[in-house]
């Protein structure tokens, strides 16, 4: 499926990765346009449910990115996020939900080029994985297909 254009949503913190992505722009480094960014004050603000909502609304891949450990603008939001993602990932793995579709990264405000790499490698990987069919099917599945009438 060569013409598949994955939809990738990036959840990033304002102070590091969002600023890093700004730097990518100022440096005119090109990357795949499949990724769209949602700005949060801090990775600590990112509710794990939002990642599921992204999949439920048709995302094929997700990037979650914030400040490197010890660099958090609020000192500890990224550490809390880290624990949250550890647990979330374990649960998703256990339920068989594909965590290869989520890139977790730390990208600082100075790492414009790295942001482009993170995006490009994620898009390439999602392209190889193809559309996230199993989650889309899950979302569209009615209770019992036999009584489906819509």
């Amino acid at each position: 499926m060569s013409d598949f254009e994955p939809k990738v949503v990036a959840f990033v913190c304002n102070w590091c990765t969002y600023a890093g992505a700004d730097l990518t722009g100022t440096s005119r480094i090109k990357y795949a346009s499949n990724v769209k960014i949602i700005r949060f004050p801090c990775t600590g603000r990112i509710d794990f449910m939002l990642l599921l909502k992204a999949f439920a609304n048709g995302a094929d891949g997700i990037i979650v990115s914030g400040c490197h450990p010890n660099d958090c603008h609020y000192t500890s939001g990224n550490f809390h996020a880290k624990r949250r993602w550890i647990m979330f990932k374990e649960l998703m793995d256990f339920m068989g939900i594909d965590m290869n579709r989520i890139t977790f990264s730390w990208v600082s405000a100075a790492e414009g080029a790295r942001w482009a790499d993170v995006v490009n490698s994620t898009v390439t990987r999602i392209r190889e994985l193809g559309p996230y069919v199993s989650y889309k099917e899950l979302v569209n599945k009615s209770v019992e297909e036999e009584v489906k009438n819509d």
Partner: protein
Amino acid sequence: METTRKLIRKQSLEKLYAHLSGSRKIYAPVTAANKQVDYKYNPPYAEVASDHIRSTLSVKNIVFPKVENLFLFTNNRTESTITDIELFKIPEVVLWGAHPCDTAAFDVLRSIFCWDTKDEFFSQRVEKLTVIGFACHKSDDYCFCTSTGLSPDSSKGSDILLSRLQNGDYVADIITEKGNAILDSCPGLFEAAPDEKPVITEVKVKFSHEQVTAKLANAFEHPFWIENSLRCIGCGACAYVCPTCACFDIQDETKGKNGKRYRSWDSCGFGLFTLHTSGHNPRQVQSQRWRQRIMHKFSYMPDRNESLGCVGCGRCSSGCPVDMNISEQLEALQNI
């Protein structure tokens, strides 16, 4: 229509199943790996359960699905468009193997769904439904159909009622025109009925529902409710497994400009059920909700719907995680 009784042999029953599944969907009980019995669409005959006392869920799902779309909509810049559900697409279904308590529940549901206006969704589904009921040859302590005015071999709600004979053959009572139509479509499978009484289980009468109803009229403030609902944890299991509970919640779900409105099962046991926007909740505590459940089935419905809201299947009790036993409580209520 006058009931006619026929014999259908064990082997013919399988043929009848095959015959019916040729033209319609069949909704029949299947025993799962964990011994629970669940209804499934078109299971192979070999898997169909016939020895169970009760399925985990009732069969109400077939006329009142746990989620049912009401309409679809699209919000455009200036106006919204609504697309109705094409009810004529609801398929013909044969409900196979339902016990008399479950089949009798359809009438109770009708008394709710078609009380003042006719619920099209419910009615269409009932219309497309043919019921082949199985009289009970087994029962347990949770069963109390006889206390709700029914019996293990009641034909209420069935189009054909099958009752097992000692040798494993069945007598088939053809109750309705729908039943008759089946008989006519495959007369070779039916034979003349023998003069033998089928095996029917005995279900003890535990209380008089008339007396319960009478008692409830003055029991609203009775301490009974608190004492007997302390252990209730307020889940919706009893309502969801109940064949006659008909409360539902209506929701809109939108994605972008497209959305749908659907209804899904709800339960008066939930704290949220009566919560007002203001924050006020007329049923603040669980005892009030438990009282509502019993009052609704045994007092309000007889008053308003002229129908008892309970068929004595015992599911709410067997499925309750904290052993809230409804027949035990009704017995007690009779004597307060």
